[in-house]
């Protein structure tokens, strides 16, 4: 476990690092400017050599700082995790220094954060989408992205016909199963596309 001495000696090294309230593991706030230095120090001096997770949080459009990046490091000596919160200062086009040169594991995690939240990691060797396809225009894990997809002025006709929502097609749309967003429960159940008729409505010819 991490003791108080460890925390205090760590905080002495860095001017932009502060401790924050935590329930499970030691949690630090770190300014953007010192992220690389802090990660390097933790890896080389403090045995936190396993970056287990790196992700982002969207605090909502009204928040003063909308995006923050959260990393979890694990030390096999302390047998404990360490959480690092960092705020992205720019709300419109969030930027963050990449730590993938220190932890290669961060490479894909940062690509995912870019893909889902649109945070640009500077000096990242290969910053492109990882889970969504390359041409996808939105950042789906942002809080203003609706679950059904974004309304567009030019919706796909087949999608609008089935779902009554003016959205771009989801990747599976037109696939083997369709579901409609309204109607009775028996009508809105996902069903095979070529069986989308009920007793009341005729089979489309």
């Amino acid at each position, binding site marked *: 476990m991490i003791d108080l001495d460890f925390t205090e000696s760590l905080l002495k090294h860095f001017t932009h690092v502060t401790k924050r309230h935590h329930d499970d593991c030691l949690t630090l706030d770190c300014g953007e400017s010192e992220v690389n230095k802090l990660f390097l120090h933790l890896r080389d001096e403090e045995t936190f050599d*396993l970056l*287990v*997770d790196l992700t982002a949080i969207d605090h909502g459009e009204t928040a003063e700082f909308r995006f923050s990046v*959260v990393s979890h490091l694990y030390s096999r000596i302390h047998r404990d995790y360490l959480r690092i919160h960092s705020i992205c200062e720019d709300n419109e086009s969030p930027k963050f220094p990449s730590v993938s040169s220190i932890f*290669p*594991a961060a490479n894909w995690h940062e690509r995912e954060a870019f893909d889902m939240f649109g945070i640009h990691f500077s000096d990242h060797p290969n910053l492109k989408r990882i889970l969504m396809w390359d041409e996808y225009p939105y950042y789906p*894990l942002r809080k203003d992205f609706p679950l059904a997809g974004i309304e567009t002025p030019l919706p796909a006709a087949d999608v609008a016909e089935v779902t009554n929502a003016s959205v771009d097609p989801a990747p599976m749309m037109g696939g083997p199963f369709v579901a409609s967003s309204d109607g009775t429960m028996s009508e809105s159940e996902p069903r095979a596309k070529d069986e989308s008729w009920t007793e009341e409505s005729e089979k489309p010819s």
Partner: protein
Amino acid sequence: MSTKTVEINVGDIGARGAEASANADSEKMALNVGPSHPTTHGVLRLMMDLDGDVITRCEPVLGYLHRGDEKIAENMTYNQFVPYTDRLDYLAPLANNVAYAIAVEKLTGIELPERCLSIRVLVCELARISSHLLGMGVFGMDAGAWTPFMYTFTEREKLYTLFEELTGARFTTSYTRIGGVARDVPDGWLDRVTHFCENLPKAIDEVEKLLTRNRIFLDRTEGIGEVSKEDALAYGFTGPNLRASGIDLDLRKDKPYSGYEKYEFDVPIGTRGDCYDRYLVRIEEVRQSLRIIKQVIDDFPPGLWYSEDAKKIFAPPKEKILTSMEELIQNFMIVTEGPQIPAGEVYFEAENPKGALGFYIVSKGGGVPYRLKIRAPSFCNLSILEKMVPGHMLSDITVILGSLDFVMGECDR
């Protein structure tokens, strides 16, 4: 009958070969493997450049099974998300359920009764055995050995029968609830588990006889896909893959949860970190899991299978909902508003068959998580491919992918 001889000019074969190898630098072949290919065990796609049979570049392309689980989690209550965790690593759903439940329980600070903890350890280890049986069998098949697969699948089938009896479902079990498990173990079920565990070592021995000293298997796996200790850590390996590289990180030992500290077991580690070591580590982990299961069953505590403190989270028993006003209201509140979880953030990792499955949950209070991040071991274990694969032959790809034992459902989420 007259015969006619036609002379065909084939050119100088030797000269053509020399010309081809002189141009080899510029003539790399691009090869796509996947997204739907038996080698990739799901929907992984590899974009590769080949120089003859040697791979010079390998870029994994993910996302073909992306379902937006994290977005879905933000739009439903904590209890409703339990079945979604089944679909992460669909070869060990029981272990995923447990990892998710413990993460939420850490936010609320509920203490679970002994019996519940024992059941959870038991199902986690059974899930590990089931996942490793598949992993080993399929790995053998990737290396060209069909028979071991038949042995491991027979045993896995028996396990699924046990799961069905316990949970009502064979694959997507959704057995764990936040604050307990769905139901107590059925009568006589533990005896049937014991019976299964007594017979499993025989099947494992058979598999070992077929593979472990098999010359062809050794030739195909030894020294292939080596990952050094440093690389394994740097690229965020966890689970059997990390231990095969010689690092003894097992969260069951290092950060015990759900009462793992009570049980005696060894953590096998490898020396070289090649495909063969990863196979050996998995074989030994199955044996160690059997040891844990024996200890759990020998000392199976009486009591409840859910926490009585978890009144605002865990739905009360059905017969009480139908007969008692208070339980009816309690159930109504859980269903309509979700379990009331205090504000805070938590990160919890469990040692799953594929590696450390982590849940990072940010709660702002109420019944729905504000942010839920799934740290999938398969996702992290794959990112090394870009570095590890170049220099290997094309035929090694099947073995390397098989030995990493990943699941795309978890990788793409």
